[in-house]
């Protein structure tokens, strides 16, 4: 039985640390129960991996909208010139529970066309 003590301690230690870890920025930390729709002009665009990101000047505040990986964006038709700065976007998605000004987009509408991002 003794030979199981060390590995068990290692596993238990890792699990404890994992449970105690602060919520960071992961995909688990979005509030799917309270979706929001953010509409306004695109102020900045980062067409980068692992996720493209835009900031949108909505009436109430500037939202950071997390989109999809660039390859998926392109595959779904939402390439960099579609989500370009200055275009008006409507993003439906879930607000972050960590950063009040960030949301993760389920889908976006630009120029009357809707792009599914999941």
């Amino acid at each position, binding site marked *: 039985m003794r030979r199981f003590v060390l590995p068990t301690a290692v*596993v238990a230690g*890792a699990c404890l*640390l994992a449970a105690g870890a602060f919520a960071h920025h992961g995909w688990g930390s979005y509030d799917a129960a309270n979706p929001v729709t953010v509409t306004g002009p695109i102020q900045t665009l980062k067409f980068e*991996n692992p996720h493209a990101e835009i900031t949108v000047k909505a009436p109430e505040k500037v939202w950071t909208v997390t989109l999809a990986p660039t390859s998926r964006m392109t595959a779904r038709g939402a390439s960099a010139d579609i989500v370009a700065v200055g275009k008006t976007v409507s993003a439906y998605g879930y607000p972050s529970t960590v950063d009040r000004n960030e949301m993760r987009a389920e889908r976006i509408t630009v120029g009357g066309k809707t792009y599914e991002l999941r």
Partner: protein
Amino acid sequence: MTDAAPAIFVALEASALGAAIRQSTWAYMTANVGHILSLMAFAGAIAVMDLRMMGVLSATSPGYILRMARRAAVIAFTGLVLTGLTLFIAEASHVVLNRIFQVKLGLIAVGLANIVAFEVWVTPKVQNLPPRTPLPKEARRIAITSIAIWFCVAACGRLIAYF
């Protein structure tokens, strides 16, 4: 990008290399897939060594199994480090502050120390043993520890995205 990270990681993420990885259509994706494939090869090679040391496949020559599997493990580990560095550089300032990533790095250090212990204390005793020979007790102990550590490392890798 977060300025809360030590300056070197902020600079790493902001570097031309970091930008190139993020802006390339293929680099991040390729590194991500390559990391998983390297992990499969590494886990397989490690499992072969550890299972042999736990008494499975006892009809084989332990020295031969260890030599062949070690070669595969070293190549796979190199792949893990290269692809892992690519993923890390792209998001260095965030990832370095991620508690699970820090736990993962610590566990990798423990795993590597466990390998050193194995190579120093076990390999010399078992590499020339014929098949079907009982192995020393520490061979089994270190092998079980090894499997436990590397499973935790893999779990931490996946968990980075959720914390």
